[in-house]
């Protein structure tokens, strides 16, 4: 069962990437994000991170942003879950 953070993250990616409803449900841990989706450039990633901060009530420091966390859905989910649990 996906938890609340997982659902919220899929919802936010749906909004940022303009996905069709349900499309983000197919994302698994290995689904590629930054570097795999051409529309997810640095401006879009900045928007995504700002939206994550607003909707998940977390603060993401610039030096925490690493390629690994943005590379796959699983990487981003693990980062956000750790932030929310912190």
């Amino acid at each position, binding site marked *: 069962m996906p938890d609340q953070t997982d659902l919220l993250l899929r919802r936010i990616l749906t*909004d940022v*990437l303009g996905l069709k409803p349900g499309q983000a449900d197919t994302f698994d841990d290995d689904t590629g994000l930054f570097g795999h989706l051409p*529309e997810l450039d640095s401006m879009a990633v900045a*928007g995504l991170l700002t939206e994550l901060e607003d909707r998940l009530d977390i603060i993401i420091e*610039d030096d925490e942003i690493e390629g690994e966390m943005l590379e796959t859905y699983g990487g981003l989910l693990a980062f956000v879950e750790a932030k929310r649990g912190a």
Partner: protein
Amino acid sequence: MVPASWPCPLPGGGTSEEFALSCDAGRDHRLLIIPALFDEGNKLRRFTVEVMRRLELARIDSVLPDLPGCNESMLPLVIQNPAGWLDAMTSAARHFRATHVLGMRGGSLFTPKSLPAFHYAPVKAATILRQLVRARILSSREAGREENREALAETAVTRGITLAGYEIGPDFYRDFEPMVPDALPTIIGQDEVGGSGLWLRAEPDENGAQADALAALLTGALRA
């Protein structure tokens, strides 16, 4: 909907002809629309024009002027400052005989106080800059250059800074950063329009249902 122009005051005196998109049939209700800023301006341009088309069908005139230094403007962005932008929008309101004004997102920071105003999903200047600076840090990192927010902010207020391709002068950055939208105007939140804001999209997009909803809200309020 036709291209129009209007005389925009220059800081040292004189005027510059600036572009506007206009739906003008000389009607009683005339809405000046201040566009969203920088990258969000691109993302919301089509949505804004789609709202104007719907207002036209509802027999409401609207005009969308360029901010000096943006879109079709021949003036350099780097010499602009927020006070000049507010003067420019006040002049546009006068020239087009606007009865009301709508600010789109960051455009809400530049709605002339002399007119009844609507703010669509208003945003603080600091929030806009935070996102632009973050995008710059990310793209520099991709290019193998490490930059940090504090140093970039220092550069921005002393020498100016290029953010997402926009060349922002030091005076602009300094005066813009503390700006927050006024509390007086009628706020139209994204929850009233439905769905998620199109400024969030990685690529510019359109949404007919959202344009219908925003135009209906404006029409209802203008006719009330």
